[in-house]
């Protein structure tokens, strides 16, 4: 399916989605409250986005506008139709919480743990939300832009 067709499909279920077609792939931004149902729809309905190949968190606090903004970016591909879609969800940086999708795409379990570890995003209903790569007693979320660690980090 082309980007346009995908967009069409999405518009039918999420008329208020924000689209961005400048990139290589269609990007859609959904509201955090709709995210879980939207994810289920993506996986199971017409689009069949069964392959979640990248799950990223972005902290926008170093930019002019993004003081309180964190974004989750999900890259999906359908192994059936071979189309790709990028979904973005905006989170409140001070209290980032989002529904987990690890029950829909199993790979999300690890990815979400990683994002939790590095950004501090809480994934609600995640089966096993723990630090993944850092030690348990690590303080702070290192990939946030304002992370400071005077002991370990030697700034250039």
């Amino acid at each position: 399916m082309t980007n346009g067709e995908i967009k069409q499909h999405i518009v039918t279920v999420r008329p208020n989605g924000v689209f961005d077609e400048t990139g290589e792939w269609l990007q859609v931004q959904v509201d955090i409250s709709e995210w879980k149902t939207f994810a289920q729809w993506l996986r199971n309905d017409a689009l069949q986005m069964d392959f979640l190949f990248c799950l990223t968190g972005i902290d926008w606090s170093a930019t002019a506008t993004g003081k309180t903004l964190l974004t989750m970016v999900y890259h999906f591909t359908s192994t059936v139709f071979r189309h790709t879609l990028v979904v973005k969800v905006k989170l409140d940086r001070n209290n980032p919480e989002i529904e987990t999708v690890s029950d829909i795409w199993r790979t999300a379990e690890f990815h979400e743990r990683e994002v939790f570890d590095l950004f501090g995003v809480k994934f609600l209903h995640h089966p096993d939300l723990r630090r993944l790569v850092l030690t348990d007693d690590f303080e702070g979320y290192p990939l946030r832009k304002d992370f400071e660690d005077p002991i370990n980090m030697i700034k250039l």
Partner: protein
Amino acid sequence: MNASQIIFYLISAFVLGTAVLAVTTRKIFRSAIWLLFSLVGVAGLYFWMQVEFVAAVQIIVYVGGVVVLIIFSIFLTHHSGSELPKTPLKQTIFSMLAVLLGFAFSYNLIAKHGFPTTSDKPFVVPVSAIGEQMLDTKQHGFVLPFEVVSMLLLAAMIGCIVIAMRSMPKGKTIQKQASPINGNGKTQDLPVPTKTMEEETT
């Protein structure tokens, strides 16, 4: 005293000492090891008595088999590092007394009887003699016990299997997470062989 006597007393002391340790130590694994040494000592005694065949059998069956089995069962049924409960002092004393009395009594009897060693004929046990007598179908042959032994072993084997298999834990079913919702049965859902290893190797 000549060398042979010294060896006898050494072995005897070894057998009895390790046997005492085997029944008194409170670490069960060590107890098994002491038992093992005691049994090896008994085998040594057989060697000393020049019945090498029995000695070898003693080692093969006890050391290679029974003790290994006992050790395995210890692993299965114990926290093998922990100590066994202490026997109450009273019980220890009474058992000690009873055993000592019994020993004194029996040994008294034995010593009294004295068992005159009638012959000084050298005692040699060639394996071929054992074999011949074992396969002998005549009056002094042991062919019947020989075959009965196989029946006994068969019975033991079947018994073991029946008993052991009855309680074999069915292997706690290991939950694999179910396949994700709606595999959607699309092109990729190729049949995956579910043959297990056992089937493959049989």
